[in-house]
Structures are given as C-alpha cells and as structure tokens.
C-alpha cells in the first residue's frame, strides 16, 4: 500500500530549484503589484538588489576609472540602481518568466552601470582619428607579413574597401568600434543614437566588407572572434 509520501512527485534538484525560482518570481510580481507598505517594502528590497548588482559591475570595471575616488564610484552605483529601478518598475509587463525575476532585474542594473562607466571613462577624450586605425592595420599586417605573404595584400584591400565601399557613417562606426576600441555606448552618445542602431550600422558595414573581399578572391570564411 502506497503511503502519501510515496505518491509525491520526485523532483530532481534542477526541477526543484526551477520551481523555487518560479515561486520567488511570482512573489516579487505580487508584492510589486500590491499597494501600500507591502509594495513599498518590495521596492526598497528591489533597490537593494539593483544596488548590489551595480556595485558588482563598477567593481569589475574600476580599473578603467583610475581617476575616480570611492565616493564617485558609489555615486555611479547609486545612480545606476535608481535608473535601473525606474526601468524595472516601468517594464514589469515585459517580464515573461523565462528566467528568475531577480536575474531579469539584475541585467538592468548591470547595463545602467556598464554604460555609465564606459561613458565616464571616455569623458573628455577625443574619438581617435582614422589614421590611428590605419596604423593598427599596418602594424598587424607588418607583424605577420613574414609568416603570411598575402597578409599585406589582404590588409591593403581592407583599407581600400573601408575607404571606398562604405558610407561615411558606416566607415566612422566601423573604424571607431573595431579598430580604435571606442565603446559603442560612448559613440552612441556622441552621435545621439542608440547602441542597437549603431550595431545595425556596424553589421551592415561588416557584411559589405565580407562581400567585397570575397568578390576580390580573399578567403575570409571561418574568421570569427573567440567565444565570449
């Protein structure tokens, strides 16, 4: 005869933690959707989590901000948490429950903090000139020319296509982001656009370069960045 406990579903640890995550997420949404002290307490708790995430991000990137003191860094963390709280509360309807609520909320704090840090690190710095980029290409081609004779030709063709086949805007974005290491968020702020719109421009420029190089007989398939 089966006892009550034996009819209970046996959950694997993974299912167990997924179920716990769903419960947590539901509880967050209920509390944030409530009114009065229950909601106020949830908002304070959420801000605390976002602040923790923002501090985590700033700590990871503090090497890029050597001129800032602890107070300045804490200001950036607080501002990031405030902005992320606003974003999370106004986008609650977008939460689809495909990840835990806290994971979903964290990403807003990390984004706010990383964008602020990148912009702060580049404050007062000029965007590099195209000549700096050609130096990168020449250095790279020069260093590998002995091993690969065709590299001088390939990098020469790349420069020609960058200068000749792309629109001015595509060239500006491609050179800044891929050769001069200007963070895309910094460039977006200076050009008064968004990361997404600039990435689309970058994507189109890269496609055009690939097509042009392939058309000139260079073998470029299989070139890809290391997995992140």
């Amino acid at each position: 005869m089966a006892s009550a406990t034996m009819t209970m579903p046996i959950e694997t640890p993974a299912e167990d933690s997924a179920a716990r995550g769903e419960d947590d997420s539901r509880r967050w949404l209920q509390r944030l959707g409530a009114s009065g002290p229950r909601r106020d307490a949830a908002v304070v708790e959420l801000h605390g989590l976002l602040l923790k995430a923002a501090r985590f991000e700033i700590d990871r990137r503090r090497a890029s901000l050597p001129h800032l003191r602890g107070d300045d860094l804490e200001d950036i963390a607080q501002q990031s948490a405030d902005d992320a709280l606003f974003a999370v509360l106004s986008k609650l309807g977008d939460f689809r429950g495909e990840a835990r609520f806290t994971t979903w909320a964290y990403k807003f704090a990390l984004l706010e903090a990383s964008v602020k840090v990148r912009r702060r690190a580049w404050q007062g710095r000029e965007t590099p000139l195209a000549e700096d980029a050609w130096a990168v290409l020449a250095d790279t081609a020069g260093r590998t020319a002995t091993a690969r004779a065709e590299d001088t030709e390939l990098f020469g063709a790349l420069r020609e296509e960058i200068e000749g086949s792309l629109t001015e805007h595509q060239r500006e974005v491609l050179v800044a982001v891929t050769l001069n290491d200007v963070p895309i968020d910094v460039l977006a702020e200076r050009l008064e656009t968004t990361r997404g719109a600039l990435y689309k421009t970058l994507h189109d420029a890269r496609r055009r370069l690939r097509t042009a190089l392939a058309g000139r007989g260079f073998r470029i398939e299989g070139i890809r960045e290391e997995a992140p």
Partner: protein
Amino acid sequence: MNDRDKSKAPEREAVLARLLGPDGPELGCEECFAELDRYVELDLAGSDPDGNVPGMRAHLEGCPACAEDFRSLKALLEETD
C-alpha cells in the same frame, strides 16, 4: 588620441574578426538584451543556450558591449547563487 601600445598590436585573427564580425545570422542588441537573462540561466544550467537562443552567440562574438554585459550577469549569478 589613441593610447594603444603600438608594440602590442593585436593579432591578425583578432583584428580581422573584429572588422569582419561574425559569419552568419545574429541577433541585434535589443534582442540580445531581451534574451540575456534566459540565455545566461540556460548557460549556467548547461541547458543548450545556443540551441534555445539562436543568433545570441554570434552577437556576443560581434558586439563587445553586449559580450561584457553577458559576462557580468553570468559572473554575478555565479557569485550570488
């Protein structure tokens, strides 16, 4: 002004990969952000993140900013869990 150390010019493959970007379809930055939480949880659970979110890996290879945000969220979850 570029303060890149000229004696440490990036390697050929890295420069080419950055210039030419990922080969194949990829998500945009907005879609990447929308999927980031799910992708990182799938990744940490070893539950085929790339099969479940096609185009994400290519975007992370092509977009340094989104790739940093991915690494940060993953590291934060690893630290808090």
